[in-house]
């Protein structure tokens, strides 16, 4: 492993990451023109919301980037083992529900204890949500694609039930929960900023996953199963379904952690539509990051900026934020097509 040999490769990867994003923005601009929206105000708002000031970048872009990085890593973990987790929206919701439920009852505990409990609840919630797809895959060989996808909608319904039923605020007026205990909230990184400790957690998770995948036997087995299941099986030393199943389980747990971090660091309560589609956006993040944890980090920040910009675009230029999904689609497709050529 020589660092100098890797450097040009990293630069090229970064370049490769900006091309799909630029293309995506161009396509969106094209559709804006076609639909008769004023383009310059839209682009202005997008830029201001994402990079316009240090406050915009740290308190909007990086705050949006946090769940995207965690979910992007979750997708990467499954994908490396050949398992496609398209149910991250559902696991995110389950993690958020679990974290909220726990976080409402931890008022007496100090933050040093309360926060880890909330995060663990998120991990557990996400893992529980993906259990059925894992069992279906391991025991019956049923693809996780459809099962995880379907459970997204059950997750939405579960949040809707929680905030109108057992977890509804004491006032019983709005479909939302009470705020979680102050000690269960992730602290802000600097005074007056909305950026919270969850961002650091996302960085640490990326570094950890990078090491796990590259430097451990577990990571090697995982990549072997994902790259060539038949070859991996022929070695006779890798329990194929078990490796993929465990990777999928952790993928779900990580997505649940994403939900817990969002509740504990941003919203402090459970709401409907807590995720504006993070579970799908994160697939674009993972692919743009070529499923390498440290590059996923960079892609997550870019997409966080895009989400922040989309919010500003909706507020200032009246363009629905959902339009950024066009950019995501173009990014995914471009990444798919170029990955094949360079592989």
């Amino acid at each position, binding site marked *: 492993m020589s660092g100098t040999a890797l450097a040009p490769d990293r630069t090229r990867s970064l370049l490769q990451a900006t091309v799909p994003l630029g293309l995506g923005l161009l396509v969106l601009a094209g*559709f*804006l023109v076609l*639909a*008769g*929206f004023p383009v310059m105000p839209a682009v202005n708002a997008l830029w201001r919301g994402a990079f316009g000031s240090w406050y915009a970048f740290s308190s909007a872009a990086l705050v949006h980037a946090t769940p995207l990085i965690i979910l992007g890593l979750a997708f990467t973990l499954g994908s490396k083992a050949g398992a*496609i987790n*398209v149910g991250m929206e559902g696991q995110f919701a389950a993690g958020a529900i679990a974290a909220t439920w726990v976080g409402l009852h931890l008022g007496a505990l100090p933050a040093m204890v309360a926060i880890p409990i909330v995060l663990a609840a998120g991990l557990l919630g996400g893992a529980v949500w993906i259990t*059925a797809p894992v069992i*279906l895959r391991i025991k*019956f*060989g*049923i*693809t996780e*694609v*459809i*099962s995880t*996808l*379907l*459970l*997204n*909608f*059950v997750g*939405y*319904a*579960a949040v*809707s*039930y929680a905030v*109108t*039923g057992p977890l509804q605020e004491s006032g019983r007026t709005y479909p939302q929960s009470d705020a979680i205990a102050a000690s269960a909230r992730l602290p802000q990184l600097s005074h007056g900023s909305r950026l919270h400790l969850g961002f650091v957690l996302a960085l640490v998770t990326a570094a950890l996953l990078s090491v796990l995948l590259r430097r451990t036997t577990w990571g090697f087995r995982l990549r072997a199963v994902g790259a060539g299941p038949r070859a991996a099986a022929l070695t006779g030393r890798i329990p194929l379904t078990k490796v993929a199943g465990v990777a999928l389980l952790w993928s779900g747990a990580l997505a649940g952690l994403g939900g817990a971090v969002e509740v504990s660091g941003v919203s402090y309560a459970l709401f409907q539509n807590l995720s504006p589609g993070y579970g*799908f956006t994160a*697939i*674009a993040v993972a*692919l743009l990051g070529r499923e390498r944890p440290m590059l996923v980090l960079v892609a997550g920040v870019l997409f966080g900026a895009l989400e922040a910009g989309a919010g500003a675009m909706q507020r200032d230029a*009246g*363009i*629905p934020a*959902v*339009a*950024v*999904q*066009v*950019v*995501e*689609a*173009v990014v*995914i*497709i471009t990444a*798919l*097509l170029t990955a*094949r050529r360079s592989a």
Partner: protein
Amino acid sequence: MIDSALLVGFAAASVRVGTPLALAAVGESIAERSGMINLGIEGAMLAGAFGAAVGAAHGGVASGVGAAVVAGLLVATVFAAVAVAARADQIISGTAVTLGATGLTGLLAQRAFTGGNLSLPILPVVHVPVIEHIPLVGPVFFRQTVLTYACYVLIPLASALLWRTRFGLELRACGEAPAAATAAGVHVGRTRALAVLMGGACAGLAGAALVLAQVGMFTERMTAGRGFIAIAIVALGRWNPWGTAAAALLFGGATALQYTFQAAGSHVPYQLFLALPYLLALAALGMAVGRHRGPAALGQSH
């Protein structure tokens, strides 16, 4: 007497609600028989719904149905270009296509329906003479809109196409053993692209049924995973149009339960009924297993 009226009402609602699912699933069963699993039909259905609303608002229901088919075809073309022609991963390309269609319809809807679209013409219920009077069967199946009747025609048509024509044989060969099909002189790429386009047209029709026969307007993300449910339905229906239609009816029933229970003033949380079709689909996947594995080369690029 009241009970039987309730039952007929429930069954008729099941057929109405099941129609978009059946249309999308019949199309998807053709695509999957050719080896293509298209998660983009969720997007094609959404585009169809948008097309139907725009077309109907400007030129009546017939234009709505036509525009829906065109929109579904356009979305399927993108999927075919990426997943068939460029041989990219089917699952990921399908997800991307659905994302793109969601973003684009959301963006365009803002422009198209700024003044609200309350005056959307909708499809009338057509009573089929004579047979509508058959007890139970008549009121349930033959007092529906023309899109439900289109579904009755499409099911045997798709079945005949798959099992009674040379093209169907070639199509299924592409799904079972594409290399062998190529060796036999079948153009696998072209056949799969055609199958995907048929699926897209059907998904577009499904979107039209949703807007013009059920909801009466377009809203952002209104398909809410129905396209994904259709994919589960295809597996439950064992990749065969007849089985698929029966499974779609079952799901229509699961959805219609919600209305029936609400009308009866039940205290069960309505979210349970919202989740029911998806849970049922999950259970169906588990039950469908072992008996039929589906096309051998499903999801593999060639």
